[in-house]
């Protein structure tokens, strides 16, 4: 063992690093940097969040749409979390490639794996906090998976939810885990990591068998800083171009979201749960969503004990590499399949719309000119409604999805007493309100719609015609 690796160099010179480094920045350091950004933005996000079923989504929406800088703060927090997962995973993969998990770095590998789990834990608990239908679906899966645990299932589900149902107690305890428990564990693990790292320094390239060391301050710091700046730029770009979405208000007794995919890093588990061929396994929920991921985590943490061969060159570690490749490929394929499924729902909606535009939609009334006019109007209105995200707050026309912070907009009412749209509002009111919501009523929640762009007179006229004179939309989405 070299002087570097047994820590003798550290005792002689203070913190040291290998003199020879490869061309990549230190992904671990970069992960630490974005994690710090996530922690920092999280502190300020917590000023604007209420962990209750009633207020969670409203408080997030308020922050995002009405608080200056709020959308930036939430976007940066969201993407910092995602970047941290990716960078930490890259760090782990690189260490694996160079045999950096082997003696004398075994303790560091184990601690690093635990840190990675905490980072994923942040992203998992974070996405469940938004109070929309997607988060509610995720909470339901959490409940089911915890409940499927043999013997202690019921207790585990109650512990996860804080009761017998998904409730404000659930959000409050997830919030406590997200903002209190996980940060404390993370800091403790980072301290432990630093303790073990102090005399080992950054891992060596697998081909570096020399004993050369340099003071740590020289160690490729410029490269890491430049890479750090690039990562920050990417973070800003993602926060700007891909702001985290928030869906309709979760409604425990409503029809639920038409499509509720979890965060990307959980897609592979979701795909396992999705596969009919696996559903016949006894207690499939537990096996697929609890046991399989749990075993993989155990395998990752136990890697240094499983492969004790001190050889670090990848060419001489075929079994390790093949095992890793099979697992990563499997996870990748499952994730890709799930991701390919996700946007299909959007595509179906689009097809529906364009079908309407050409006048041969799946409804039973295609053919006559008047009906095709009605369908054109339906399609045009639905495009506008989607663009302005009206369904975030309103249930429109008996739709399956829609928020409930705005009044129901049912064009034809129903027998249970929901009045017809035309009975509730006059045309003049509609034009004034929808044409310029803020001018009409300064405190209106409809400023949320403003993000989609200006409500042009043409669009307003289309909407007015649809709301007051339009024909029913043919039911076609569900079959």
């Amino acid at each position: 063992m070299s002087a570097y690796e047994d820590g003798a160099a550290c005792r002689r010179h203070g913190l040291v690093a290998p003199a020879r480094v490869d061309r990549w920045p230190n992904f671990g350091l970069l992960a630490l940097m974005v994690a710090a950004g996530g922690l920092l933005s999280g502190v300020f996000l917590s000023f604007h969040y209420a962990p209750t079923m009633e207020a969670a989504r409203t408080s997030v929406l308020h922050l995002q749409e009405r608080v200056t800088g709020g959308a930036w703060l939430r976007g940066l927090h969201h993407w910092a979390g995602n970047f941290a997962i990716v960078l930490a995973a890259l760090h782990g993969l690189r260490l694996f490639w160079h045999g950096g998990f082997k003696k004398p770095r075994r303790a560091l590998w184990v601690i690093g794996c635990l840190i990675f789990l905490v980072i994923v834990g942040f992203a998992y608990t974070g996405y469940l906090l938004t109070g929309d239908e997607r988060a509610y679906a995720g909470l339901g899966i959490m409940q089911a998976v915890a409940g499927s645990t043999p013997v202690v299932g019921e207790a585990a589900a109650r512990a996860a939810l804080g009761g017998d149902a998904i409730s404000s107690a659930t959000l409050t305890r997830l919030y406590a885990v997200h903002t209190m428990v996980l940060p404390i564990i993370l800091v403790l693990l980072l301290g432990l990591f630093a303790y073990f790292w102090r005399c080992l320094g950054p891992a060596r390239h697998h081909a570096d068998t020399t004993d050369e060391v340099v003071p740590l301050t020289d160690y490729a710091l410029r490269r890491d800083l430049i890479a750090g700046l690039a990562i920050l730029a990417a973070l800003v770009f993602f926060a700007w171009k891909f702001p985290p979405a928030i869906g309709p208000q979760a409604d425990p007794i409503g029809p639920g979201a038409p499509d509720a995919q979890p965060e990307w890093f959980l897609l592979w588990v979701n795909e396992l749960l999705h596969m009919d061929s696996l559903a016949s396994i006894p207690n499939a929920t537990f096996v697929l969503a609890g046991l399989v991921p749990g075993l993989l985590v155990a395998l990752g943490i136990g890697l240094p004990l499983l492969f004790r061969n001190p050889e670090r060159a990848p060419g001489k570690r075929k079994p390790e590499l093949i095992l890793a490749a099979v697992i990563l490929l499997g996870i990748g394929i499952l994730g890709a399949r799930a991701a390919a499924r996700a946007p299909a729902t959007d595509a179906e909606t689009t097809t529906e719309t364009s079908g309407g535009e050409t006048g041969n939609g799946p409804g039973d009334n295609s053919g006559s000119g008047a009906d095709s006019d009605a369908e054109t109007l339906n399609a045009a209105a639905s495009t506008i409604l989607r663009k302005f995200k009206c369904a975030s707050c309103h249930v429109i026309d008996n739709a399956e999805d829609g928020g409930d912070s705005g009044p129901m907009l049912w064009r034809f009412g129903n027998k249970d007493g929901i009045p017809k749209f035309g009975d509730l509002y006059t045309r003049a009111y509609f034009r004034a309100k929808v044409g310029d919501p803020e001018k009409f009523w300064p405190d209106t929640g409809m400023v949320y719609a403003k993000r989609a762009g200006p409500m042009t007179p043409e669009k307003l006229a289309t909407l007015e015609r649809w709301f007051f004179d339009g024909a029913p939309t043919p039911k076609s989405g569900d079959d």
Partner: protein
Amino acid sequence: MTQGTPSSPAPKHRTGNQPDTQVDTMNRRGFTKRLAKMFGAVFGAIFGLPAVATLADPVLGGGASKWVDAGTLAELAPGAVKRFKYPVQAGWETREEAGFLMRAETGDEVVAFSARCTHAGCKVRFKDDEFHCPCHGGVFSRNGDPIAGPPTVPLVRFETRLDQDHIKVKA
């Protein structure tokens, strides 16, 4: 500083960080230091600006008052005092707060008070024709003037007007 060419074959590492001269080392250190400062500034700006903006938002916004309907004049007998509610937009909520309406013994004049004691902000109660503060024993007359205890300033009055039979309060 010596560097391998990017396309050099395995082993894929360069020999870096080995100073040729003292001057070279100092230049490099200076550059790294500047880079570190720049990184710190960019990081601070990216996360600091939205943080400050979101903290400042509730401080800079708000405070808007508007006319609210406080019922009809007919419901308020001459000389009577009663509570009225007004909405306050706060964060993601619209909360309700209460104040008092006092109608003059004669005529249509109506005065609207805030229910907050001017001494330390507790909610006053109307009892025995006076406003009593439960916290430090302040007492205000039915006109809102301080008559006993620590308060020295009258209860805050809201602007009022009559819109036909309706009492409107700017709260």
